[in-house]
């Protein structure tokens, strides 16, 4: 995985059902991405949060997944390791009937703030 244990680490994993889990993740302040995003102003890149969701979905399903489409992804607040050192990444998956694809609904939030909501279709990597 591209960003696991580099941009984030999973502190705790709560499986609600086989299709539904919450990953408590720590955003790592020492990740090299903050050298450039932005110099002197560390902000977690929205696309890294999207990648974090993908990697959590891979852990939930236990297969490598590609992002086929993102129907909608709203970035509702600025995130960074100092603003939100720990976040809940909530992922719900549903198999798209007759295909190898999964529809996923995911969110990144802490107790006070929602940072991201995403609806996407992921496909199993061959």
């Amino acid at each position, binding site marked *: 995985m591209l960003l696991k244990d580099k941009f984030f680490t999973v502190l705790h994993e709560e499986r609600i059902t086989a299709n539904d889990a919450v990953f408590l993740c720590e955003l790592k302040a020492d990740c090299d991405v903050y050298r450039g995003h932005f*110099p002197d102003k560390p902000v977690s890149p929205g*696309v890294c949060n999207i990648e974090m969701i993908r990697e959590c979905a891979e852990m939930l399903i236990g297969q490598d997944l590609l*992002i086929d489409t*993102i129907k909608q992804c*709203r970035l509702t607040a600025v995130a960074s390791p100092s603003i939100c050192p720990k976040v809940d990444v909530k992922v719900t998956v549903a198999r798209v009937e007759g295909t190898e694809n999964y529809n996923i609904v995911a969110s990144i939030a802490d107790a006070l703030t929602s940072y991201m909501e995403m609806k996407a279709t992921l496909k199993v990597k061959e």
Partner: protein
Amino acid sequence: MLYQNEELFRLMPQRAPIVMVDKILDAEGDTAHTGLTVGPDNYFIEEDGRMAEPGLIEHIAQSASAFKGHKALQAGEPLPIGYIGEVKKFHCYVRPAIDQELTTTITLGAEVNGVTLMTGETRCGETLVADTQMKIFVE
């Protein structure tokens, strides 16, 4: 070619290791063409040598950011710092490989209270790589 490599740093705040656009080919009105050569050290290259899809989203977002920076520079305005507010109808058709040349068309649309609607379409040669709608939020 309007800008390439470090010249783009005049237009956008992102720096290594997450610079995902390396040229603006042309810009006219609300449309610009940008490019990226996918280097082996690109931040989003996966173990199989292909770029992860979020890298394409970042490429399109930074292309728009640099284009807006170019417009600000032309107008003598301060450089805007833009964040992605929303990604909508993103579709990845193929993940680019190392050494491939990406070319992207950015079209800016309506703007309300610092939120700009835009579309981006990325190709490698004639092959469609990804397309998306996006909202860029400027602080």
